[in-house]
């Protein structure tokens, strides 16, 4: 298979591809078939700007990314070494003119990603032949024999064709500005919900709501029919029921997939609906990658290092390899490097399970010396990390496997904004706060949870969204501008409930003006 302008892989590279893939399989990696292509620097920048794909629908932001990538590669600030698309077959790119050791490193690294794409449960959301899971197990158990259909390159190319057709009919201005609107809402999706899509939802009951209780005046039995006449009771009951029905909300339960809700109920033109659908589809495609950034890069780095040092690098290449590897894993400037954090976590898990440092005995052991020398020689490490790569995402992995020892060893710290010194400063190195901060940051990959609360807000057909405030305020300016875009889709005033410095607030935009008022 050839993607666009690719050139045939030269034989010395395809030989290595086969060798490295075979070796990776021997080590236990389970990968999709792979296609490697060699690209020139500019083509690499182009593909990177397109999010890894050879074609995307026309939009200026690819051009913007391209400009930035091109500038930094022209000025020698950065170079993209490796890119791989979650697709079946997996497609990956090699940069033209790189030394053989670099290409080997990339091939090995890509094998890691590929195995991760294929086996991590979050990526099942990108199976195009996905069936509703019948049980929770279905979600996570690897179907080794089954190669899921992931023809995303084709899908993205189709998206491009569809958008181009809309542009021909409705003009670039209209289409582009609507894409801008959709992009602005693209993080309002509900991936966990989608993973479970099609399952019976036990949350929604088919039962009738509890019958209305009418208050009766207290009296003796024989007086009932006089004091509480049946007609009066019925009338009262009807009134109460009417009130209850009026108060019934739509949607009944908050919907986190705001985009799906808008697709279903917003008064959109057909082409607008189509574009919104495309944007939503692509947002779901990219979701698992954002959700497993640390794990995915860590896993790929773990394996490239195993493959390179144990097999692929020759003696005279090892120094160059070590140099590249060090720059990939560097943590200069106090930044968190997902490659580094990821690989360290996997190694940490591997070591703990090799030495049996888990379970009740380990948890309850308080003797420092004993803990230090704790080694049950269980050799379960490799098995454990394979399990971890299938069953976790960044959030759950860190929740489960981040230990105080790890935080100290890897010098993790939290930082916050200091108003006094007007700079970011190190807050703490305590395990609890580091873990908490990491988790908050990663949950929903840093996006606030927003759901559709009421589509008939104040009985005026306005859309009310709700931000589930978890301690961090929204960026209000951005929220207002996003609200404008929601309003553009809903075509009626829209509002969002959030909190500003712990006070509940409603931001509302009616198409002309923004208002902010405290919530009653």
């Amino acid at each position, binding site marked *: 298979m050839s993607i666009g302008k690719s050139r045939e892989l030269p034989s010395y590279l395809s030989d290595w591809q086969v060798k490295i893939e075979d070796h990776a399989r021997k080590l236990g990696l389970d990968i999709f078939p792979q296609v490697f292509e060699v690209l020139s620097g500019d083509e690499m920048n182009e593909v990177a700007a397109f999010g890894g794909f050879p074609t995307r629908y026309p939009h200026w932001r690819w051009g913007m990314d391209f400009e930035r990538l091109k500038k930094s590669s022209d000025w020698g600030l950065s170079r993209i070494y490796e890119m791989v698309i979650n697709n079946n077959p997996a497609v990956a790119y090699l940069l033209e003119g790189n030394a053989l050791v670099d290409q080997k490193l990339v091939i090995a690294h890509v094998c890691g990603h590929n195995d991760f794409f294929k086996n991590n449960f979050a990526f099942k959301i990108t199976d195009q032949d996905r069936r509703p899971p019948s049980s929770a197990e279905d979600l996570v158990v690897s179907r080794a024999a089954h190669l899921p259909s992931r023809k995303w390159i084709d899908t993205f190319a189709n998206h491009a064709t569809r958008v181009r057709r809309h542009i021909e009919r409705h003009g670039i201005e209209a289409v582009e500005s609507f894409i801008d609107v959709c992009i602005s809402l693209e993080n309002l999706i509900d991936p966990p919900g989608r993973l479970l899509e099609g399952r019976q939802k036990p949350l929604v009951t088919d039962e009738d709501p509890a019958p209305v209780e009418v208050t009766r005046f207290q009296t003796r039995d024989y007086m009932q029919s006089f004091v509480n006449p049946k007609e009066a009771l019925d009338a009262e009951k009807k009134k109460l029921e009417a009130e209850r029905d009026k108060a019934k909300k739509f949607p009944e339960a908050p919907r986190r997939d705001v985009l799906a809700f808008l697709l279903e109920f917003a008064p959109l033109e057909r082409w607008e609906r189509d574009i919104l659908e495309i944007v939503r589809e692509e947002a779901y495609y990219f979701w698992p990658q954002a959700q497993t950034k640390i794990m995915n890069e860590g896993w790929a780095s773990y394996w490239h290092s195993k493959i390179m040092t144990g097999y692929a690098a020759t003696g005279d290449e090892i120094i160059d390899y070590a140099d590249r590897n060090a720059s990939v894993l560097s943590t200069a*400037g106090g930044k968190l490097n997902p490659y580094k954090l990821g690989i360290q976590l996997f190694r940490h898990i591997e070591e703990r399970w090799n030495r049996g440092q888990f379970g009740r005995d380990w948890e309850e052991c308080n003797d420092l010396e004993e803990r230090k020398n704790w080694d049950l020689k269980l050799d379960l490490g490799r098995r454990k990390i394979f399990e971890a790569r299938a069953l976790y995402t960044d959030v759950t992995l860190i929740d489960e496997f981040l230990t105080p020892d790890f935080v100290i060893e890897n010098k993790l710290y939290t930082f916050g904004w200091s108003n006094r010194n007007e700079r970011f400063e190190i807050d703490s190195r305590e395990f609890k706060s580091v873990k908490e901060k990491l988790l908050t940051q990663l949950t929903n990959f840093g996006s606030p949870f927003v759901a559709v609360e009421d589509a008939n807000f104040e009985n005026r057909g306005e859309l009310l969204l709700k931000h589930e405030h978890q301690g961090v305020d929204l960026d209000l300016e951005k929220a207002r501008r996003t609200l404008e875009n929601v309003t553009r889709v809903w075509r009626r005033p829209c509002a969002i409930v959030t909190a500003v410095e712990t006070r509940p607030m409603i931001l509302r935009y009616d198409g002309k003006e923004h208002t902010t008022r405290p919530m009653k």
Partner: protein
Amino acid sequence: MALNIDQDHARFRDIVRGKVRGNLRKYISNGELIARQGKGTVSIPVPQIDTPRFRFGDKSAGGVGQGEGQPGDPVGGQDGEGEGEGGKGKAGQGEGQHAVEVDVTLDELAQILGEELQLPRIENRGRRQIFSAKDKYTGISRVGPESLKHFKRTFREALKRQIAAGIYRPDRPIIVPTREDRRYKSWQVDTLPVANAVIIYMMDVSGSMGDEQKEIVRIESFWLDTWLRSQYKGIESVYITHDAAAREVDRDTFFRTRESGGTMISSAYKLCADIMQDRFPPDEWNVYPFHFSDGDNWSVDDTSLCIQLLKERVLPHSNMFCYGQVESPYGSGQFVKDLREHLGADERVVTSEIRDKDAIVDSIKAFMGKGR
């Protein structure tokens, strides 16, 4: 090689242009741009090209980092990043929302400036354009001096002839050019327009001109320079600073020096007139003297000397004379009034009072709006 992305890239550039246009006033009054000037281009930070999303306010968020340091120490590398939002751990669609910087060529910038301020194109004063002649060797001729003989072509002709005549023997390839085979390089005379406009910047650097005043002058002259350069093929600049005495300086010094002491504007005008006379004969040059001052001249006598100099020696040889008066807390600002009183009727004289940075745009329009 044409890339798929070219179209998106072009579209992005268009949007940037629109953004630049919409915010032109802000860019102009912002001195930062000049500092970003590279080789023929300026990088412009384009605000709000990022798509708004529901996201967390940055500063309350903070993040997790890795490395050395005690609580209370600053986090490394945050200056360049501006955000420091948990490093790459949060990468993905949420990240990288800094202001975008784009390179815009100075020509393009001048064009946007012209369109936005509706500046007329400048009419050449009817003086003859000057051209310099330059020889370019572009052709081949059959005759010429031996020194210009083109050996390769000559031998090729000879080879052609010998093959045609059937006397060429591949096993013994001896080629002898004859008279007819000889080829010579020939040239054409290219005429290139040479610089025929000169901007003479004069600035008051006396004690009363503070840093802010100089900043305004700096910004304004950058834009004037950009505009005029887009209008003339070649352009020269002369920089003069003065307090009680005038000196010709280089560009760098012009914007940096701070003198103290009194102000004699006539000294600058005199030097300006001398330079014009010596180096820029008026029938060959379009001359643009600009003078920036806070309008606080030493004496009434000096002011009348200035007016005399302008009338007799500067104005007759200039396209226009522009005087920009920067407001300063120390100056009386009298000079602009005097100029208007005595020379207000002369359409070659343009005066403008620049109260603050925001007034720079209007001042440029006043200066360049006449299209002279």
